[in-house]
């Protein structure tokens, strides 16, 4: 009799210890937050600032790990195959979650994830060199039509948010076939090429734009930005939906099939962490635009973005 009790207890302990994801006890071991890029990049620092507040909110331990390569797809593909136990989450950007799976043959897709929460979202801006002759979008369209094949837009790589921004702009304006696309390896070389005059147009978030001497032409947001009230939105210059809004957003994803109670717990912890003083200060220091959505709202948002971005991918010819 005694031995049966003992055995049951031992088995129970084993199951709890190894299998783990019983919601009320969650978490019993550290949570791994995966950055799909190298240590020290923007995404990495955001998550490193986020992790301690998240750990406190969820009442456990959390650490950040990096897995880089293939524009973030290597990490996402690795996580997609993992057990959905809530101990592993990835921070995917709009491109990793919604663009890459549609342009590359990779082992994850729309239904591979349990979206947990969105953390940040910034609208993108199309810009040119501050001393360029182009003051408005109309100037650009007129110049491109007058000299087909002369003007070049840059990007930080095929399928990157910088590429999508320029494609949304010039495809929406109907002049993309009369321009050339020059991809670079990262935003740094592209910005340098802009300063040197090799490329004339580039698109990125407002934060990136403020680093150089650039002139914004159009912003891909639903309304004008308070920081640059004179810059028109894409809809105002005649760019039709779904190309008129484009955000660089990022959020936490767990593998598909996560227990709803655990999802709830993680999503709530995410909200607490975003609202914590420490993380708010980080966002203010780095000009990160926070945008929290809980698991219930993030899921439909993510699916809608996936569908909307397929139009952009077609326009980009990817």
């Amino acid at each position: 009799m005694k031995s049966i009790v003992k055995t049951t207890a031992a088995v129970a302990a084993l199951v709890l210890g190894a299998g783990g994801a019983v919601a009320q006890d969650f978490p019993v071991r550290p949570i791994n937050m995966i950055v799909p890029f190298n240590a020290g990049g923007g995404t990495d620092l955001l998550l490193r600032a986020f992790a301690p507040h998240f750990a406190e909110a969820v009442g456990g331990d959390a650490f950040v790990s990096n897995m880089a390569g293939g524009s973030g797809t290597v990490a996402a593909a690795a996580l997609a195959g993992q057990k959905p136990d809530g101990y592993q989450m990835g921070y995917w950007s709009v491109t990793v979650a919604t663009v890459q799976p549609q342009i590359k043959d990779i082992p994850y897709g729309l239904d591979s994830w349990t979206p947990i929460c969105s953390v940040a979202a910034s609208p993108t801006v199309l810009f040119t060199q501050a001393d360029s002759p182009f003051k408005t979008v109309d100037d650009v369209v007129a110049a491109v039509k007058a000299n087909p094949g002369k003007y070049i837009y840059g990007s930080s790589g095929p399928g990157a948010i910088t590429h999508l921004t320029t494609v949304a702009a010039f495809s929406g304006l109907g002049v993309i076939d009369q321009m050339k696309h020059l991809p670079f390896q990262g935003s740094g070389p592209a910005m340098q090429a802009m300063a040197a005059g090799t490329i004339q147009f580039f698109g990125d978030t407002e934060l990136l734009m403020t680093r150089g001497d650039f002139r914004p032409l159009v912003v891909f947001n639903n309304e004008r930005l308070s920081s640059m009230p004179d810059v028109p939105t894409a809809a105002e210059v005649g760019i039709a939906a779904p190309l008129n809004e484009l955000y660089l957003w990022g959020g936490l994803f767990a593998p598909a099939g996560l227990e709803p109670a655990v999802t709830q717990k993680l999503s709530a912890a995410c909200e607490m962490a975003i609202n914590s003083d420490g993380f708010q200060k980080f966002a203010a220091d780095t000009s990160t635009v926070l945008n929290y959505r809980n698991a219930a709202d993030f899921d439909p948002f993510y699916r809608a973005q996936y569908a909307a971005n397929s139009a952009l991918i077609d326009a980009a010819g990817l």
Partner: protein
Amino acid sequence: MTSLFSERRIVSVVIFLLAVGLVLSTFGLEFADLGGAFSPMFFPRIILFILLGLAVLNVGIDMLAVRVAQPIEVLPVSVIAVAFLAYVLLLVPLGYFLSSTGVGAIILFAVGLRNPLQVVLVPAAASGALVGLFNHVLKMPLPTSPFFWWI
């Protein structure tokens, strides 16, 4: 007598065959037909054609020249090479500590150490120290075993 199938000649022929295979693989692939610099195969094809040309020359040179092969202890090298391949494949499923201790012990055994204490304890101590440092002090985890999350 042994010269026709010397190690060196086999290697140069294998490289030549690989180059031929890679050159062939650049044709008949389904890439968007953009032509010129836009084609993903534009650059690799240039490289591979030059490599193929060099490989042909190389086969010729190695066929003409006669060289004495360096001596080699085949057994320890093969054991270590196979063990290392198994090690990198088992590193994630078994975790860094267990797999490293295993491969370390095999290397020590292969190069002639026989004292079981040395053969097992040295690799275990080394990999244990690394796991302790990275997983627990720096919080930069190496892969862990399925049995215990902390090691």
